[in-house]
C-alpha cells in the first residue's frame, strides 16, 4: 500500500510533465470540410535498410551484427541451414523436432528444472527448434541479461544430456497432440494435401505419425545432435542494443568449446511424383459446419527468377484481403470467413496452396469460384492498372515493418545468408517488384498454377456436399480417410 501511494505521486508528476497542455476547447476557424476529397499522399518514405557487419568466428560460423539502440533489448539467434528434409531418416519423421526440444532437458551440470529456473530469473526463454529445411537456437533478452543468457544457450546447445525419461515424456505428449490433430479439419487437410502432392518418397511428403514417433531412439537423437548442430552451417545473428566493438569477442568466448565442422546441405531433391489429372480428395467429417479446402500443386523453389512476379501475382490472387479470391468468396458472396493463397518457396519444390473454410452448403459454388479465379489470373480476367499498383505497393511499402523489432530485424538480415539471397536484396527489392509487368503475372500464373493437375483436398460433411461437388463437374472425387487411405465405397 505504501509503495502504491509513493508511486502514485510519481505518476502525477509524470502526468504533469508529459501531458503538455493541449486540450482544445474551440474548433479552429475553418471552411466547411469537403470530405469527399480523398487526401493526397505525400512522397513515399525512403526505405531505410539497416546496416550490418558480417564476419566469421574461428570455428567457421558466420556472425552478423546489427545495432538497434531505441530499447534495451538484444535478440540472439543461431540459424542452421538445412533441417529434417536433409538430415532426418525417412522413417523417423519427428526426430529433428524432438532433438531441438530436448536441448531444454538438462545438461552435464544443470537439470532441466535448473535450466528453466535460470531462464525465468533472466526474464528470457531459450528455444531450440528444427524445421524442415532450417533450425535455430535463440533468445531475446534485456540488454543486461544478454551474457548470462548466452552462456545458458551455449550450455544447452553443446552439453545437453538427452535423458531417456525426457524422450519418453516428449513422445507421449506428441502422440496426444497427433491424436488431437485428427479432430482438426485444418490439420487433416494439410496432412492429406502433403501426402497426395509429394507421396511417401519425397522429403516434402513426410509427415510425423504415431509410427514414426515410436521409431525414434535416444541414439538417434544423439546422432542427429552431433551431425546437425555444427558451425559450418550456422549463421549467428546478434541484433539490438549491443556494443559492436565488444560483441564478437563475447560471442567467440561463449562458443569457444564449439569445434569447427559441418557444411551446408546441397538441397538436391528427387522430383515430386508425376502429376495426376485434377482430382478432388474428399475426407468425410460428418456434420462439419464448414468444408476446409486445400488446393494446390508442387511449386517453384525460392531461387526461381520468377520470385518477384509470383509475389505480385499471388498477392492479387489470394495474398491481400482485397485479393480476388477473398474479395469474391468472402466479401461478395459471404461463403467464408476468409480464403487465401500462397507459395511456400522452399529450397525445393515448395507448394502452391489456396484454400480456406467454406460454409458446407456453398462448397460447390466456392469450388467453382476458386476455378474461376485460377483461370482468371491466367488471362481470363485481365489485371487492372489499379491492381498492379496495389499488388506492388503493398509489397514494397510493407518492407519497413520487418525492421521494427530486434527479432524482426535479425531475421530479415540473417535470411539473406540462410537463404542465399544477394546482399543488396532489400535495397533492390522495390526496383525488382516495380519491373514486373502484367504479362509476367499471366505467364507465372500459367506456369505455376497447374489447374489441370491440381490436388483438391476437401475435408467436410460428405453426406451434405458430395452430390453437389460431383455436379460441378470440376473433377472426379476420391474418398480418403483421415490417414489418406482410400475408403472403399460399397
Amino acid at each position, binding site marked *: 500500500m505504501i*509503495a*502504491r501511494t*509513493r*508511486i*502514485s505521486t*510519481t*505518476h502525477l508528476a509524470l502526468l504533469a510533465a*508529459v*501531458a503538455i497542455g493541449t*486540450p*482544445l*476547447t474551440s474548433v479552429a476557424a475553418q471552411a466547411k*470540410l469537403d*470530405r469527399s476529397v480523398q*487526401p493526397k*499522399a*505525400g512522397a513515399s*518514405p*525512403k526505405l*531505410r535498410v539497416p546496416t550490418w557487419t558480417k564476419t566469421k568466428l574461428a570455428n567457421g560460423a558466420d556472425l552478423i551484427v546489427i545495432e538497434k539502440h*531505441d*530499447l*534495451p*533489448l538484444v535478440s540472439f539467434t543461431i540459424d542452421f541451414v538445412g533441417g529434417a528434409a536433409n538430415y532426418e531418416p525417412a522413417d523417423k519423421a519427428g526426430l529433428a523436432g524432438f532433438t531441438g526440444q530436448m536441448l531444454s532437458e538438462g545438461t552435464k551440470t544443470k537439470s532441466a528444472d535448473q535450466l528453466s*529456473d535460470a*531462464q*525465468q*530469473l*533472466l*526474464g528470457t526463454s531459450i528455444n531450440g527448434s528444427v524445421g524442415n529445411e532450417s533450425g535455430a537456437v535463440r533468445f531475446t533478452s*534485456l*540488454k*543486461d541479461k544478454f551474457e548470462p543468457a548466452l552462456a545458458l544457450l551455449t550450455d544447452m546447445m553443446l552439453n545437453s544430456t538427452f535423458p531417456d525419461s525426457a524422450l519418453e515424456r516428449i513422445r*507421449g*505428449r506428441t502422440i*496426444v*497432440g497427433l491424436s*488431437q490433430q485428427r479432430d482438426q*479439419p485444418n490439420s487433416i487437410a494439410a496432412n492429406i494435401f502433403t501426402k497426395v502432392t509429394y507421396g511417401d518418397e519425397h522429403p516434402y511428403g513426410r509427415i510425423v505419425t504415431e509410427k514414426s514417433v515410436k521409431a525414434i531412439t535416444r541414439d538417434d537423437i544423439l546422432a542427429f545432435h552431433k551431425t546437425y548442430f555444427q558451425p559450418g552451417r550456422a549463421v549467428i545473428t546478434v541484433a539490438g542494443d549491443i556494443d559492436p566493438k565488444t560483441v564478437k569477442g563475447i560471442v567467440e568466448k561463449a562458443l569457444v568449446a564449439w569445434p569447427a565442422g559441418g557444411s551446408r546441405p546441397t538441397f538436391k531433391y528427387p522430383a515430386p511424383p508425376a502429376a495426376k489429372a485434377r482430382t478432388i480428395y474428399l475426407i468425410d467429417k460428418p456434420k*462439419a*459446419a*464448414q468444408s476446409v479446402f486445400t488446393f494446390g500443386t508442387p511449386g517453384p523453389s525460392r531461387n526461381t527468377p520468377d520470385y518477384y512476379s509470383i509475389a505480385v501475382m499471388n498477392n492479387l490472387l489470394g495474398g*491481400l*484481403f*482485397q485479393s480476388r479470391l477473398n474479395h469474391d468468396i468472402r466479401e461478395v458472396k*459471404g*461463403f467464408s*470467413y*476468409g480464403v487465401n493463397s500462397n507459395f511456400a518457396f522452399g529450397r525445393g519444390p515448395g507448394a502452391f496452396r489456396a484454400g480456406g473454410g467454406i460454409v458446407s452448403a456453398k462448397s460447390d459454388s466456392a469450388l467453382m469460384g476458386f476455378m474461376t479465379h485460377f483461370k482468371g489470373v491466367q488471362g481470363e480476367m485481365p489485371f487492372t492498372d489499379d491492381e498492379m*499498383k*496495389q499488388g506492388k*505497393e*503493398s509489397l514494397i*511499402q*510493407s*518492407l*519497413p*515493418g520487418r525492421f*521494427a*523489432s530486434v527479432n524482426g530485424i535479425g531475421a530479415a538480415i540473417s535470411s539473406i545468408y540462410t537463404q542465399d539471397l544477394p546482399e543488396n536484396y532489400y535495397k533492390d527489392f522495390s526496383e525488382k517488384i516495380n519491373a514486373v509487368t502484367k504479362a509476367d503475372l499471366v505467364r507465372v500464373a500459367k506456369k505455376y498454377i497447374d489447374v489441370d493437375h491440381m490436388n483438391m483436398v476437401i475435408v467436410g460433411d460428405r453426406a451434405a456436399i458430395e452430390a453437389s461437388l460431383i455436379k460441378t463437374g470440376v473433377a472426379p472425387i476420391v474418398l480418403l480417410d483421415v490417414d489418406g487411405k482410400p475408403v472403399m465405397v460399397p
Partner: protein
Amino acid sequence: MMRRSYLTTPASVLTLALLCAAPSAAQKSASAAKGSDAVNIPFEKMTLANGLTVLLAPDHSVPQVTVDVWYHVGSKNELAGRTGFAHMFEHVMFTGSGHVPYGMHDRLTEGVGGNNNGSTTNDRTNYYETVPSNYLESALWLEADRMGYLLDKLDEAKFKAQRDIVQNERRQGVDNQPYGRAFELMDYGIYPDTHPYSWPVVGYMTDLQKAGVEDVKNFFRLYYAPANASIAIVGDFDMAQTKTLVNKYFSDIKAGAPITRPKVVAPVLAGEKRMTFEDRVQVPRLYLSWPSVGDDNDDTAPLQFLAQIISGPRTARLTKALVYDRQSAASVQAFNNDNENAGNFVINITPRPGTTLTQLEATTDSVLARLKQEGPSSEELAKTSAGLEFGFVSALQSNLGKANILLDGQVFHGEALDYKVQYAKLKAVTADDVKRVANKYLVPGRVVLSIVPLGKPELAASADKSTKVTVAPDGGHYIMGNKQ
C-alpha cells in the same frame, strides 16, 4: 485468417502485455533501473470539444504510423437474445461510409503497404490501421468518416453480407473447432442468464440471424460518438501537423448522447457447478473456472502472478506436477481472464492416455491446496517479475502495442498513464498477496467443465456428479440437464 475478429480470451492476453507494460518506478537495482528509465511512452494528449480524446506518441524508428481507435462498447452493452451485435457491427465498419466507397479502406491501408483490423471484446471495440507515414492523413480521413458518416451509405445488402461472414466466423472459430465451445460454456456456467458477461462476444447463431439493419443504425447512434471514443496515433508523424489534421477531420463530428453503462454485478457461485459437454473430440479435456475480479480491481495483479506460478514454464507448480513429474497431462494452462468489471480464473488441462479427468482434478486440487497453504516462494515471485519486466519492454517495440497500452488506460481507467500505476502494483505484489488471492478466489464455488468425446459422458470428471449440457435445438444457446 484472423482479420476483423472477436477475441475469445482477450483480457488474459492483452492484460499480460499491459501489465508487463510499464517502467518500474520502484526499481532499486542499478541495471534494471537503467532498463526501466529507457522504457517509457512519451505522448501528448488532446481533447476536442466534442469529447474525443487523442493520444499522440511519436516514434520515428520505422517510417510507418498506427492509428488505433477504441470505442467503449462491447458485447456487455448488448441484451440477452440480441447477442453478437457489437462484433457484427465491427464488420459493418469496414464496408464504407458517407464519403468513402466500399473497398477504399483496404485500398488505402493494405493496398499501400499497410494493414488494418478491428477486434471486439466484452468491453470495447477497436479499429486500427498501420500505414506508411505518408498515408497518415488518409487514415485519419477514413476513421473520421466512419465515426461521423457510417449510416449515410449503409444498406440492407451490405449488412446481410457481413452477417453471413460473421456466421462463418462463428462456424470456423467455435462450432467447427474441437473444444471451441469451452469458453462459452464456462461463461454460461458462471454468470446468470441475463448477466452482461454471460453470452459470447461472437454471439449465438440464432441471435445473429435475427439482427437487422435498423439495429445497426440504433447501435451506431448510441455508441459510435466522439465522446465514447479515444484515438492513439503512434509512429512516424509530425506533432504539430498531426494535431491540425486531427482537428480538421474530427472536430465537427457531433458529440453524441450520454451513455448508460450496464450494471455489472460480480457473479457468485453458491457451490460447485459440474458440467459435461460432448464434442467431436478424441481426447477429453478438463476446464476449471472460478469467478474472480476484473480490470477495475487491485487483486488482478496478484492473480496475474498466481496464474504464472501455477502454469507456463516447466517449473510452474501445476505444469511441473502434471506434465513433468506425474506425466499425467499433455498440457496445462492457467490465466486470469479479467474483463473491465469482472473476471474469471481459468485452468484447463489435457490428459495423457491412461489418466482420467477425475484423477487430474484431484491432483490439481491438491497442488492448489498446498499453494493456498504455503504461498509462493521468493524465487517464484522473482521469476514471475522478471518475465513481466521483459514482456513490458518487448511490447514497446510495436506501434500498435504502445497504442493499446495507452488506450487501455485511457478507456478503462480514464488516464493513459495508468500503465505506470498498473506496473507499480505488479512490482508491489508480495508472497502474502498471492497467497491471499489464492485463498480468496480458488474456492469451492466454481465451474468444472468436462469436454468429452461424443457418446462418452462417463469420461467426465466425477461423471456421476456432472450434469450434461447440450446445444439448444435451434443452435441458439445451451441447455443444462434433460429438459428436452
